[in-house]
């Protein structure tokens, strides 16, 4: 039994060490990071949109973390924005960094596609805008009505993607999600860029702001 205990205690201690280095220390360091002054907290509606984003798993196809151009040049050149810094995520709970780019990075989609009509139409059916897109359509975020009521947000879908008759209007969830997309705009200058480019053995001169 003694040997068995020794193994289990040893195993637990090693995990403790790993927890200190990989959980506690980064937490201490990153929670001390400055929040960029231009970063606005989410409004209630944007926060709701964020929940819709989580519930429908947009994160499995979209990242929110442009990399440093000296490391991965494509990110900035595609217009996905400057490299993100820990402070940019001060209001993100849970984080939505993502690890897949089946679709483009969305960290600055609000700056790239600032039109709410574009966002709604794209959500209703991405192929109505981008031929051959493999993003799923989200018809359940919209209502199909004969006559839009007062205050309804009408979404004009180009044929043949819309319904034969009647009109498509956005639900509260769709509006909130679209507002969240517009809020994803981190084009302000970052006060705390990483001290070194991730590729620390490369020269630092060609760092982009």
């Amino acid at each position, binding site marked *: 039994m003694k040997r*068995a205990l020794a*193994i289990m205690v*040893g*195993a*637990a201690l*090693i*995990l403790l060490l*790993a*927890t200190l*280095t*990989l*959980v506690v220390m*980064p*937490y201490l360091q*990153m929670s001390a*990071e400055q929040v960029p002054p231009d970063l606005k907290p989410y409004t209630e509606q944007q926060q709701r949109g964020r929940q819709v984003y*989580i*519930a*429908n*798993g947009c*994160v*499995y*196809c979209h*990242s929110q973390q442009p*990399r440093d151009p000296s*490391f*991965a*040049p*494509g990110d900035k*050149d*595609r217009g996905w924005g400057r490299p*993100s810094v*820990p402070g*940019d*995520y001060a209001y*993100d*709970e*849970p*984080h*939505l*960094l993502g690890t*897949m*780019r*089946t679709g483009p990075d969305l960290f600055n989609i609000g700056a790239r596609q600032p039109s709410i009509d574009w966002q709604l139409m794209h959500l209703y059916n*991405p192929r109505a805008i*981008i031929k*051959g*897109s*493999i993003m*799923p*359509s*989200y*018809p*359940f975020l919209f209502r199909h009505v004969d006559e839009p009521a007062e205050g309804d947000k009408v979404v004009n879908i180009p044929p043949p993607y819309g319904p034969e008759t009647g009109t498509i209007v956005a639900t509260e969830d769709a509006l909130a999600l679209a507002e969240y997309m517009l809020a994803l705009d981190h084009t302000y200058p970052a006060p705390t860029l*990483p*001290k*070194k480019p*991730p*590729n*620390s053995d490369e020269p630092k001169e060609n760092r982009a702001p």
Partner: protein
Amino acid sequence: MTPTIAILLIITFVLSTVGLLLLIWSIANNQFSHGQAAARTIFSPGEEGHSEDPARAADEPFTGDTSEQTAAIEARWTADQSSRTAVLTWLSSSVFWLLLGSFFGLASSIKMHLPEFLTASEFLTFGRIRPVHLNAVTYGWASMAGIGVALFLIPRLFKTPLVGGKYAVIGGFIWNIGLVLGLSAITLGLSDGEEWLEFPWQIDILFVVGGALCAVPLLLTAANRKVEHLYVTSWYLMAALVWFPFLFLIANLPFAFPGASGATVNWWFAHNVLGLWVTPIGIGIAYYMIPKILGKPIISYQLSLIGFWSLALFYSQVGIHHLIGGPIPTWLVTLSIVHSVMMSIPVITVAINHHGTMIGNFSRLKDSPTLRFVWIGALMYTVASLQGSMEALRSINVITHFTHYTVAHAHLGMYAFLSFILFGAVYFIMPRLTNWEWPWRKLISLHFWLVSIGILIYVVSLTVAGWKQGVALLDAAMPFMNIVKMTLPALQARTVGGALMTLGHLVFAFHFIAMLMRSGAATEQPTLFRPATKENAQ
């Protein structure tokens, strides 16, 4: 870099170097042949040299030459029967979740090239069925089958009947309730939002409790044990069962980790589920099955212990290689990359032991289903891990990080390694628990070929396409939609491969149920891929 961080980095470097030196030392001192008493503890007295495999009929099953030996074999039969209810609870559940998870995986795959497939209902949108797939196969299939096999191995390793098996049965029920609630929550859109941690944290408590209940029989049986040496498999199983509740608890501490530091905790956890939970279970099973079926101890016991401790040390720190290039401190990423590369030490020691023990016995792959599944699994462990160590390097990861290449690696690990070993273990265990032979050899063959061809198509197509996708993404001159179109054929090929795998799982589940119901004719002879003697084969 602050001084504390520098010191930490130095310590880990020193530890890694010590590990490497130990490896070199043990090779130089020919540790491969000495100190093998412990390696023999898995055999009953006099059993060495006899294969314990239902699928190896050319040898007479070993029943003992002396009364002492016969008593030992009978004691093992008693030990096997003692774990019966607990093992069958966990294994049957796991087979159910494998089927469910496969259908969800297949549907996710179809949706990635036919985006209009099943879009009307929010419950079946890609972003919900994909996490249902991941959680069903990880926590349902892999974890439950792993615990089931562990419960079978514990009494055998300690040579005493399982004590407190009912705790494991209760644990199994709680775990299943957790899965039902968790998967429903994802379907209803109540996900916690972090990959590998989608289940709402309130539900996760059920897994901590269910897992802890399985540790009870482990501890009680260990206290009762009749063997002097703890065989290396018990090391892996004990450590895994300690690690899992701990990990799950910390990672789920609600709202403790916001923003970017939440991402580090997320991936620290996710990789520990792989490295400190399913991997030790998979390697541990292979460490038992390969020597047992060959009737020959592993070639180096010392090496296996070095492998164990270096795995614990290095694997626990690799998690941040999932965030290379992300908005987190550079030292943290470097730490994880260093450890990812150092992981080649445990991987190579395990490879020497698994494959070295096989040398000279490869012909047995022709007839033993267990050996074939388990050894191919062990080989794929070596391949997936060495691939992983490369993939963690910045120069490679910058290409592969956000692409289908990662998905191919994930299935090489979780499927070709882990699931294959679990399939092999189930083929070994069931006849011993039900005292019934697998009724149809052809079904085992069919299962093997369907899943092997399926996973081959899956991994090859996505690896190639993922690499090309990654290279193209770095070059902004290539429009994004062109990249999407370029990957389409591979995504379609994945659906073909995945459909074959799902078919294989249907065959496997059917055969498993037939075993539970004791269908088919009673045979005296073990079920082989090929009849070894002229029996009345069906």
